[in-house]
């Protein structure tokens, strides 16, 4: 959740990924492709975080019985 909230800092003027992408979009005239790229970068980070968390959950929940899905 926090990762996705960080996307907001560009509104108050910090130069994060979103700001860079918006500038690139403005100067090149094709914001769509750059925005898709930014989306992919965020997707990559969330996927990695999810994988790590799932590993941690598996590691520290080994003693707890899980219901069959």
């Amino acid at each position, binding site marked *: 959740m926090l990762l996705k909230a960080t*996307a*907001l800092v560009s509104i108050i003027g910090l130069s994060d990924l979103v700001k860079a992408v*918006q500038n690139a979009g403005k100067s090149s005239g094709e914001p*769509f492709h750059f925005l898709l790229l930014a989306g992919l970068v965020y997707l990559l980070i*969330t996927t990695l975080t999810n994988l790590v968390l799932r590993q941690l959950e598996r590691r520290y929940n080994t003693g707890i019985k899980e219901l069959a899905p």
Partner: protein
Amino acid sequence: MIELLNDYGLAFLWHDGYNLSGLAMTLWLLVASIVLGFILSLPLAIARVSRNRLLRWPVQFYTYLFRGTPLYIQLLICYTGLYSLEVVRAQPLLDGFFREAINCTLLAFALNTGAYTVEIFAGAIRNIPHGEIEAARAYGLCGWRLYARLILPSALRRGLPYYGNEVILMLHATSLAFTATVPDILKVARDANAATFMTFEAFGIAALLYMLLSFLLVGLFRLAERRWMTFLGPTRG
């Protein structure tokens, strides 16, 4: 403070002289996106728990995509991204739709909250005790009747606390609409701030309005939970 209220009070609440603004606009954004997301999420949640991979995987991909990226990026793609494409502007229908900021905002919000709602309802459907479904089968319910009479009502009740949470998060998320020039509460506060330099007062009023709405939603969902979830609690003698 008094002159700020005199000048911007009406704009904060519901009208800025040209169209809806402030509280009314925020409420409209919230209600429209929640209703659209809800309608979208019911069939998708059933598909999400389906045994058929062809049904399950597209929905899983959709929720993964929309839960994995920030709402701000989704809004930017809908608002600036899509309209910059030649293909979109060439189609009169798409051109008319994406030219209006409010349409782009509602599309992004509805798809975003829809993705979260699908996961909430799919989780609730998975958590229905097997005994309930066996009992319904024993009474001869099957197919869509089983879903309409038992699975959906039960899942909606079980999902209610999580759904209420999602609605309140969505209320907070509507404050992003100002980046797409939609005149919601935060846009009015920013305009008032830019015109009067009474920063604390302008944003303070906005914060109070959002807090009021949150309290209202929390109260409404508490009433709804008391009404529809009593059967899950301990019986009172």
